[in-house]
């Protein structure tokens, strides 16, 4: 027998009151734990999302944040266009040599399929883009879960751009484009012969690799077909001519990469009403491949000094801007963090209310416990020991409530993980317990113990002689 066993017995004898108080503490602690879990998972997901994107070069219009959100997070719309000239400089031109480029991969955006964005790019997205390094130091490429990636490399893109430029130039009154010029897929054979039906987009380009989340949500596998849609819900234009076969499914990355569809950039720019080359004026006569319009360039350099060079370079340019995903997303998280802080405060208020519940529940029992306390005092219990017993009871209720709350949170995360993933794209790791949760249990126990001090003081001030029974 000791003070703890006395406290435990007191709680057991008032099982209903103790149980209800424990549940109220569990709900408060569970709410805090759930919020922490969601915030931590969201921040983790955001931090993971920009791995591999050292810099994003995009149109001068729009904010760097909008550029990062569109290019990295698949949110919003492209803010404007970047001329291909910038891409070529970064890929293998002047800037590439100066900055020591690792990769510069173009992106063209603006169309969707079933709500998932289409990203026109080159096959360097699969062969060069790296999400970091594995334990052996090898770059982590985008793996394929099923099928294989389509092929459309940088050189093919340059040839496509040059063909497009000649087509546009011809349409402005120059020489007609030759049949050779229509060898879009670069296989040396014209895409169509004289008098044949002209398929505006060669079959070799109408291929798509889909992200893991797209495959899961839409039930798409290799062999499936996607038909891009241009525009918003109010005005949609179905690109039947660009119906593409799914040739590969990416292995899941847990990042927004999983939620996009990747097609050859030539296919994207060849779709009906997609202006591959934007002419600033009908009077323009000299059109070149450099005028091909893309949405953004994903950039990574071998040289760590590249960042400052890149910043300096694009500070004064009028055709593009550079955005730093790690900076923009950190800013965004700070912004979201303020809202998260407010939520945290509310969650702690719930814990405070639960602690008040502990206080009130114990305080109300003190009247009926006066005789019991008087007996213990008569047996030699000091006021401090009575105080200790009541505080122990409050702490025990709070500790059990906090543990239950954390367990409740993880149980809920397990039950609702699929729903949360579908609605928020946040993959809850329900089985991962953190030190924060251990501290939450300690914190709630201490707060609950403090809530027991007031009733404990009331209990410890019971006049012994008045409650021991009749006097003779």
């Amino acid at each position, binding site marked *: *027998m*000791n*003070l703890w066993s*006395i406290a435990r*017995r*007191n709680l*057991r*004898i008032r099982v209903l009151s103790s149980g209800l108080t424990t549940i109220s503490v569990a709900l408060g602690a569970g709410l805090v734990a759930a919020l922490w879990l969601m915030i931590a998972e969201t921040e983790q997901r955001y931090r993971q999302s920009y791995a591999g994107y050292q810099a994003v070069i995009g149109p001068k219009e729009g904010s760097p944040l909008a550029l990062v959100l569109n290019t990295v997070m698949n949110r919003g719309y492209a803010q404007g266009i970047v001329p291909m000239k910038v891409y070529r400089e970064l890929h293998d031109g002047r800037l590439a040599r100066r900055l020591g480029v690792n990769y510069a991969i173009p992106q063209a955006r603006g169309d969707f399929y079933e709500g998932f964005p289409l990203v026109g790019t080159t096959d360097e997205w699969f062969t060069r883009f790296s999400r970091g390094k594995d334990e052996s130091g090898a770059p982590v490429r985008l793996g394929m879960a099923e099928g294989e990636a389509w092929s459309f490399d940088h050189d093919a893109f340059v040839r496509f751009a040059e063909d497009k430029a000649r087509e546009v130039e011809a349409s402005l009154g120059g020489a007609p484009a030759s049949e050779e010029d229509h060898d879009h897929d670069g296989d040396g054979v014209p895409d169509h012969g004289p008098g044949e039906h002209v398929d505006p987009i060669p079959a070799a380009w109408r291929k798509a690799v889909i992200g893991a989340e797209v495959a899961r949500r839409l039930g798409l596998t290799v062999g499936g077909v996607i038909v891009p849609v241009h525009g918003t819900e109010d005005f949609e234009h179905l690109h039947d001519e660009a119906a593409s076969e799914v040739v590969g499914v990416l292995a899941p990355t847990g990042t927004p990469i999983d939620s996009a569809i990747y097609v050859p950039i030539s296919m994207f720019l060849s779709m009906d009403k997609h202006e591959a080359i934007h002419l600033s004026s009908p009077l323009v006569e000299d059109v070149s491949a450099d005028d091909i319009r893309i949405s953004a360039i994903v950039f990574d350099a071998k040289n760590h000094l590249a960042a400052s060079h890149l910043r300096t370079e694009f500070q004064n340019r009028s055709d593009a801007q550079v955005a730093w995903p790690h900076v923009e997303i950190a800013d965004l998280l700070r912004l979201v963090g303020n809202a998260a802080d407010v939520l945290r405060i509310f969650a702690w208020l719930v814990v405070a209310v639960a602690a008040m519940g502990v206080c009130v529940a114990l305080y109300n029992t003190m009247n009926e416990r006066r*005789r*019991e306390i008087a*007996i*213990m*005092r*008569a*047996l*030699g*219990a*000091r*006021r*401090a*020991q009575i105080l200790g017993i009541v505080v122990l009871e409050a702490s025990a209720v709070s500790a059990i409530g906090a543990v239950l709350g954390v367990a409740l949170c993880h149980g809920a995360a397990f039950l609702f993980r699929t729903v949360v993933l579908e609605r928020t794209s946040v993959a809850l790791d329900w089985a991962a317990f953190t030190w924060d949760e251990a501290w939450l249990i300690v914190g709630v126990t201490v707060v609950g113990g403090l809530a027991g001090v007031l009733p404990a003081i009331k209990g410890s001030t019971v006049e*012994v*002689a008045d409650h*021991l*029974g*009749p*006097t*003779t």
Partner: protein
Amino acid sequence: MIEIQNLRKAYRLGAREVVACSVRELRIASGEQVALMGRSGCGKTTLLHVIAGIVRPTGGVVRVAGTDLAPLGESARDRFRGRHIGLVFQTFNLLQPFTALENVLLGAVFSGQADGSHRQRALELLDRVGLADRADHRPGELSIGQQQRVAICRALIHEPELVLADEPLGNQDPETGAKVLRMLLDIAQDEGRTVVMVTHDPGSAALMQRTVRLEDLREVA
């Protein structure tokens, strides 16, 4: 064991002072068994509470086991009571949530000397009063006489020098009451404990070595 001189315990009722207990002199030797008698309201229970250190005297000297209780603070008196005094109440005052064995052990918890040996002693005491097979029963599952025997064991568990009993026979029939009282006195005698018992019952008082009437101890105002 007990030395009291010019003891006075008074309470204030508004502007009026009410004297609850007044004792000119009382000495009880170590190992003695004394009955304390007197008419209702004469201050027997108050005197017992003063000797136990539950209430502080307004004046006078109260020395128990060589310690003057009057100048001690509340916490020190609590500690003293826990170590040196065992109490048996008229209404037994067992705690309902606890079993008979746990109620007995409670007496040791607050003595500051509780260790594994107390469990063995508690079981031995319960055995001695014929309740070995009732150790796991709660007070509500015991008869009045059994409850009082548990209360006696609780008063003795921490081997106090002094046992104070306030009408310990309560509402028991005289025969059962006398039997329970003999148990207490036998154990106390065997272990050399001093017993002071407040009672109205001359039969119970006759079992003690000495009887003191409180009226005879009154300090002359």
